[in-house]
């Protein structure tokens, strides 16, 4: 990674750069050699492009796909509301997953055998059963518990409490917590023990050591898989279709079945899922970059820096005859 970044020329003139690299005495004459021809690369590129063209052509010319319907419904208010709900439920379930996951990870690593076993049991149950089934169980809870009775604090009919939204949130969030717990635990264990010792030797308490020294370093290990979990969550949230929560997939399918544009509406859903996952991927990149501080000698370039470097580097590559 550092290599690539080092190649960014300080000045755009490739020949001047070559001089400085040799140490500045007498510039040797540039190597004049006929580059190796990579015929295989050309052939494979042509084959791949041809196949891709065939595929695109099949979709573009298919008579039964009404492409104008896709365009028409992409910004439909029902679809946008559905996409909004997908985002909402994903974010809320993820927050629930992270908070509970951290608690579970700490419980799991605790010296108290009761708390660590309870956390183990939770993770075993929620990771060991499909999230689809878990969603159905929450949704149908009223079948076995007619009322929710939290003593003096709260009491209501279960049907009133377990709305599609609640079932979706609990189903996704509690499931996510089990995965987040394992991710957090791995992150905390990845921090060298010498760090804790150094902090303790300076007189820092357990809590401060965890907060100031261990967690910031664990974040480097925790953030990338957490980002992946969120991207997964955006897509997994389509499963809450089954608890009749009106998210993106449900919104688009409803339109699809009434307007006889089933496939078209699925494409619309795909477009929005792609938009959401892509936007988040960019955000994740910057987040990871932030937590890489100190662990890399040089931070990786931002996408924009990469584009600039590539544009400058292009001419240079050609100039060198690669």
């Amino acid at each position, binding site marked *: 990674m550092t290599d690539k970044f080092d190649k960014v020329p300080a000045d755009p003139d490739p020949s001047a750069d070559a001089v400085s690299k040799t140490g500045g005495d007498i510039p040797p004459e540039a190597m004049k050699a006929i580059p190796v021809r990579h015929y295989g690369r050309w052939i494979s590129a042509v084959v791949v492009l041809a196949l891709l063209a065939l595929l695109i052509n099949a979709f573009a010319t298919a008579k039964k796909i009404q492409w104008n319907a896709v365009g028409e419904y992409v910004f439909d208010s029902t679809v946008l509301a559905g996409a909004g709900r997908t985002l909402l439920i994903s974010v809320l379930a993820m927050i629930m997953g992270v908070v509970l996951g951290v608690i579970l990870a700490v419980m799991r690593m605790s010296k108290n055998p009761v708390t660590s076993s309870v956390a183990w049991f939770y993770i075993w149950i929620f990771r060991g059963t499909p999230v689809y089934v878990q969603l159905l169980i929450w949704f149908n809870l009223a079948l076995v518990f007619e009322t929710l009775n939290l003593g003096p604090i709260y009491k209501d009919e279960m049907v009133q409490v377990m709305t599609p939204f609640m079932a979706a949130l609990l189903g996704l969030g509690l499931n996510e917590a089990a995965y987040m717990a394992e991710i957090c635990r791995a992150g905390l264990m990845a921090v060298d023990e010498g*760090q804790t010792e150094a902090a303790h*030797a*300076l*007189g820092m308490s357990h809590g401060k050591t965890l907060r*100031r020294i261990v967690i910031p370093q664990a974040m480097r290990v925790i953030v990338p898989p957490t980002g992946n979990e969120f991207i997964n969550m955006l897509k997994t949230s389509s499963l809450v279709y089954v608890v009749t929560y009106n998210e993106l997939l449900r919104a688009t399918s409803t339109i699809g079945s009434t307007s006889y544009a089933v496939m078209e509406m699925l494409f619309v859903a795909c477009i929005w899922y792609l938009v959401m996952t892509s936007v988040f991927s960019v955000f994740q990149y910057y987040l990871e970059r932030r937590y890489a501080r*100190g662990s*890399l000698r040089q931070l990786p370039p931002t996408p924009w820096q990469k584009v600039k470097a590539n544009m400058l580097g292009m001419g240079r590559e050609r100039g060198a005859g690669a």
Partner: protein
Amino acid sequence: MTAMVKAEGVHKSFGAVQVLKGIDLEVQTGEVFCLIGPSGSGKSTFLRCINHLEKINAGRLYVDGELVGYRQKGDKLYELKDSEVALQRRDIGMVFQRFNLFPHMTALENVMEAPVQVKGTNKAQAKERARELLDRVGLADKAGNYPSQLSGGQQQRVAIARALAMDPKLMLFDEPTSALDPELVGDVLDVMRDLAESGMTMVVVTHEMGFAREVGDSLVFMDGGVVVESGDPREVLTNPQHERTQAFLSKVL
């Protein structure tokens, strides 16, 4: 002169393995006390017992007259709470073989961390003091660098500055130069020599016999979890009395 560290019959075992089998020694205030011995002799373990990173199994260990990790009431011994142990450790600086700098903080932030977080020193003051300390170890220009951007010798000097930032009354060095390239050892030893001249009480586990001879006030040779020989470093190193000391020194000198 009073004893800064006093050990009476200190025992330590890891499971069934007995690492320290009754250590008795005294480190006087202001002296440089060197611990030498073959690996596995228990010298690092003993050092780690002094600031309670390891719990001793038997015996008594005092720092500046205070029992480490325990409180004695009558004839009963009470374990100290974590917060009380932390309070004792404030006054004892430690430098590790593998530096253990905090990699997510710059050199300056590493040195500021403990005064700000533990003592509650205000940031501006801590920063000024941290700059002074980095200057003292010859790294004023590296304040903004992360540990990964520093050489081993520079990292170890930052680690010394970090320990000094708490104004300790005692400094522990656990083989501070063993993980360094040979040409970087000198810089770290120079800093330690300066520190010794300023009157700091230092306990140094080391393989640098030159340093022990030149800077050390007392020296202890440990082997197999016991003190084999002790005395003036120049005396012990040039004219060892005990057979095992002779064997060890003939290999390292």
